[in-house]
C-alpha cells in the first residue's frame, strides 16, 4: 500500500488554520521537531536547549537563547534551517533574530534579605526557627531540595493512571496480574518485581496504577515513583551539596519504591552503587521495590553484576506488543472515554496500521478526531485514511535498493550508469560512496552485493566507502546535511 500526502486545498486550509491558533510555544515545538531531523543530536541539543520564541511580529520571529554563543550560532549558521522550518508552519515568517534570555529567568519573589539570609548553621540543623535576625525560613531554604522531607515523600504519582483504565489483554496479562498481586500483599509476594517491555506499551501506566492503588488504600505508606534519570540527578545534586547521607536516609524510609526506566542507570557506576545500597536496605526491611525497563536485566549493558542478579531474584514479567484485537479494544475504550462516535471500519483501519506502540495508537486516534472536528464531518473510513495518510507513509514505507540509488543519483545529478561505471572522478566517486553507505546502513546489504551492483567492485572498496562516509558524517557538517536530505527524500527518519 502506498499513501502519498496530497495537499489539496482543504488540508492546506487546515494547516493555515492550525497556524493561526498555534501559540509561540507550539510553533517553536513544531519547528524544533523539524530542525531536529536535519541536525546531529549533539548539535541539536547543544544549540537548541532552553530556546523559545519570544515574539512573533510581521514576519519576524525573535528567538530567546540562553547565551551569546547560541545567539551567534543560530543567527549565523543555523538561520536557514530555522527559517525554513518556521516558514513551513507559517508562510508569513521571513526572518529570525536572537536575543539572550538566561534560562533561569524564573520569577524571584520579592523577599527581603532579612528573611532569606539564613543562620550560619550547617545543613544538618533542624532547630526550631526563631523570628529574629536573619531568618525565619531556615528549614525550607536548606540547600538540597531533594532530601527535604517534604520533597522526598512526594510520591510523584499521576492519579490519571489506575488499574481500572488499564486495558488487559494477553500481551500484558502477566505483568498486570503481578502488579495487582503486589498491591494486595506489599513487600512479601514478588520482591523485586521487574517489568519490561517496549516504548509506549503501558509500563508506566501499570507502575503508576500500582502506586496509586497503594496510596489510596494505605495513605500512611510512603510511596515514591521516580525515573532512574531523576534519581541520578538528585543524587548528583546531593553529592554537590554534600548531603548524600540524607539523600540515602530519606530513601530508606520508603515503603514502596518504583523506579521507572532503570536501563538509564546503565554505565553510571556511582549511581548504581548508591542505588544498590538503597535497594539492599529496602529489600532487607521487606519493603516493596518495583522496577521497569525496556529490556530484560540481562540485556541492559554495563549493569553491575550484583544489581543484575538482584533484579533477576524476584519476579520478571514482560509486556509485549498488543495483538490486533487488543489494539481494537484499546481504540474502542479510548473513543468511549472521549465520547466520540467512531465507526468499526475506521477503528479497524487504525488498529491495522499502527502496530508497535499504544501511544502512537492513541496519537493516531486523536488525529482522526481532530480531522473530523475541523472538517465538521463524521468519521468514516475514507476520512480516517486521509487523516492518517502522511503518518502512514512514514511508518509503511520501506526502501528498495533501486530507490536509494535513484534518489542519490537525482540528488547529485549524476546518472546511475555513470555511478556504476569505472572512473574515480570526485564528482562521481562521492555520490557513489554515499549510495554505498546508504545501501549498507538502510538495507543491511552485504558488501559484496553492493560491490556487484556497482559494476563488480571489490567488497573492500565498499567497506572503505562506508567507513569514510560514517567518519565524515561525524566531522563534516556538509556530508551530514547531504545524507540527511537524501534520507528525507527517501522518507526515512533523518537521524
Amino acid at each position: 500500500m502506498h499513501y502519498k500526502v496530497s495537499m489539496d486545498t482543504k488540508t492546506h486550509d487546515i494547516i493555515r488554520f492550525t497556524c493561526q491558533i498555534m501559540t509561540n510555544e507550539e510553533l517553536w515545538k513544531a519547528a524544533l521537531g523539524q530542525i531536529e531531523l536535519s541536525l546531529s543530536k549533539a548539535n541539536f541539543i547543544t544549540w537548541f536547549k532552553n530556546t523559545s520564541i519570544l515574539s512573533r511580529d510581521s514576519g519576524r520571529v525573535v528567538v530567546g537563547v540562553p547565551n551569546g554563543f547560541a545567539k551567534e550560532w543560530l543567527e549565523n549558521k543555523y538561520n536557514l534551517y530555522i527559517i525554513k522550518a518556521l516558514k513551513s508552519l507559517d508562510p508569513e515568517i521571513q526572518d529570525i533574530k536572537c536575543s539572550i534570555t538566561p534560562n533561569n529567568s524564573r520569577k524571584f519573589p520579592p523577599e527581603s534579605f532579612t528573611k532569606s539570609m539564613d543562620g550560619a548553621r550547617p545543613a544538618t540543623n533542624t532547630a526550631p526557627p526563631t523570628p529574629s535576625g536573619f531568618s525565619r525560613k531556615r528549614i525550607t531554604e536548606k540547600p538540597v531540595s531533594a532530601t527535604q522531607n517534604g520533597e522526598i515523600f512526594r510520591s510523584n504519582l499521576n492519579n490519571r493512571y489506575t488499574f481500572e483504565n488499564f486495558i488487559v489483554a494477553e500481551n500484558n496479562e502477566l505483568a498486570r496480574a503481578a502488579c495487582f498481586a503486589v498491591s494486595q500483599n506489599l513487600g512479601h509476594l514478588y520482591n523485586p518485581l521487574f517489568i519490561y517491555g517496549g516504548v509506549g506499551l503501558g509500563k508506566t501506566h501499570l507502575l503508576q496504577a500500582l502506586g496509586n492503588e497503594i496510596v489510596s488504600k494505605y495513605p500512611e505508606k510512603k510511596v515514591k515513583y521516580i525515573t532512574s534519570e531523576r534519581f541520578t540527578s538528585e543524587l548528583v545534586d546531593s553529592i554537590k551539596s554534600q548531603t548524600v547521607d540524607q539523600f540515602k536516609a530519606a530513601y530508606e524510609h520508603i515503603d514502596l519504591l518504583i523506579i521507572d526506566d532503570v536501563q538509564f542507570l546503565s554505565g553510571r557506576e556511582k549511581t548504581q552503587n548508591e542505588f544498590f545500597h538503597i535497594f539492599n536496605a529496602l529489600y532487607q526491611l521487606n519493603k516493596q521495590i518495583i522496577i521497569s525497563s525496556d529490556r530484560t536485566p540481562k540485556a541492559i549493558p554495563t549493569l553491575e553484576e550484583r544489581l543484575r542478579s538482584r533484579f533477576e531474584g524476584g519476579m520478571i514479567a514482560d509486556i509485549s506488543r498488543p495483538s490486533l484485537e487488543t489494539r481494537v479494544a484499546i481504540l474502542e475504550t479510548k473513543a468511549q472515554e472521549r465520547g466520540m462516535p467512531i465507526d468499526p471500519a475506521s477503528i479497524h483501519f487504525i488498529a491495522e496500521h499502527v502496530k508497535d506502540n499504544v501511544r502512537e495508537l492513541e496519537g493516531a486516534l486523536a488525529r482522526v478526531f481532530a480531522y473530523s472536528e475541523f472538517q465538521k464531518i463524521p468519521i468514516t473510513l475514507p476520512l480516517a485514511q486521509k487523516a492518517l495518510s502522511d503518518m502512514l507513509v512514514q511508518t509503511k514505507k520501506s526502501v528498495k535498493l533501486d530507490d536509494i540509488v535513484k534518489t542519490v543519483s537525482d540528488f547529485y545529478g549524476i546518472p546511475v550508469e555513470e555511478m556504476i561505471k569505472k572512473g574515480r572522478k570526485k564528482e562521481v566517486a562521492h555520490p557513489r560512496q554515499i549510495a554505498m553507505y546508504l545501501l549498507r546502513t538502510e538495507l543491511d546489504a552485504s558488501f559484496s552485493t553492493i560491490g556487484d551492483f556497482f559494476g563488480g567492485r571489490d567488497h573492500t572498496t565498499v567497506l572503505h566507502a562506508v567507513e569514510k562516509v560514517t567518519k565524515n558524517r561525524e566531522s563534516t557538517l556538509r556530508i551530514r546535511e547531504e545524507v540527511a536530505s537524501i534520507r528525507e527524500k527517501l522518507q526515512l527518519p533523518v537521524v
Partner: protein
Amino acid sequence: MKLSCTQENLKAALSSLERVVGKQGTLPILSNILLETEKGRLRLSATNLEIGVITSIGAKINVEGRITVPAKLLINFIQNLALDQVVEINQSGTQVILQSGNYTVKINGLDGKDFPIIPEKGNGRSFSIESKVLHLGIQKTLFSVSLNESRPELTGVLMGFREGGVFLTTTDSFRLSEWQMRGRVEGDASFLENTQSPVIIPAYTLQEVVKVISQGNDLVQVVLEENQVFFEIGNTKIVSRLINGRFPEYQAIIPKQYSTTITLPKNEFQRALKIATSFSLYSSGEVVFRLNTEENHLEIHSQSQGIGEQVAKIPFDGVLSETMQIVFNPRYILEGVGALSGEQIIMSFNSPATPVRLSSTEDGEEYIYIVMPIRK
C-alpha cells in the same frame, strides 16, 4: 596554515585557555582549541559555551589558516617541550603537524568552521580598572559565593557602584563579603549603580579572570552588554554570560553599630579555629565562642559525642559589655579571617543571634565580612 612561534608564548596562551575547554560536553568540537591566523598573529580560542576565552600571540605567518585541535594533546605536547624552542605549525587538510626541535606530532583536528563563534564585544558600556585592584577584589570576595545551584543569583559575584567606586559582593546566605575597590578606574563606571538588572558575574568566570590578570598596573577593560560581560586584558579576552536574578537586599542586615568589639591576634585565632574545626567535623559542625566579663580571653570550644572535645583560650583586647555564648560554623569564621589583611582581627557583635562582623585596620571600612551565628 603554516606558521612558527615560540614555545614560551604558545604555552602561556594555552594555559589561559586550558580550564575553559569543554569537558564531557555533547559536542566533541568543544574539547578542541581553535587556532587561526589573524593580522600576523596566531589567535587561540576555547569555550565551553558558558564562558569563552580568546588570546593571541606573535607568530611568523607563512600561510593563513583556521583549524581546531584537541586541547589535551596540544597542551601536553607544548608543555613537554624544552623552553626557548620554536614551534612550527603546519596544517594539512584536517591534520595539524607540530614540529619543534627533535619532536614532531601529527594531530587530527576538526574543521575550524564548525567551532562556536565566540561573541565579540559590541558597543556596551564599559570602564577599565587596574588589574591588581580587580585581582585583590576577587580574592577578597569570591570565597563566599554559594555553591548551591538552587539559588543561581547567589552563585555569582555582584558588581555594583557606590560612592565613586566599584564594589564586589558575594553571599551564600550564611555569610557575606563586600569589597569596595580602591584604585585607578578609567571611564565612568557609575552606570553600575542604576542598571535595570544587577550585574551578577558567575563565580567561575572570575576564577578564570583572576588567573589571567597580572598583579601589575595594567588596565582590565570591563564591558557590559545585555546578559553578557567581556573582560579584556592585554591580548586576552574573556566573555561570559551574566546570572539573571535579583541579588538580595543585603544592606539592611549589615548592623549599623556594634555593642562589643574585641581585637584578636590573627595567628592564634586561626590556629584555634583549625583545631576546633577538626573536632566539630564529627558532630554538627558547631563551635561555641564563650566570652566572659570576668576573664579577658575568648574561649573556643567544640566537642563530638564519642570522639572527644577541644578548648582553646585566646587573649583579646577590648571591653565586654556582657557574658555571651555564640555558636558558629568555624569554617565561615576561618575563611573570613583568612581573607583579612594585617596581624590583628577585629570582631564586632551585638548578640548571639545577630550578624557578627570580622574586620582589620588594614582593610578598614572598605571590607565588610559578616557571619550569621547559629542560634540555639
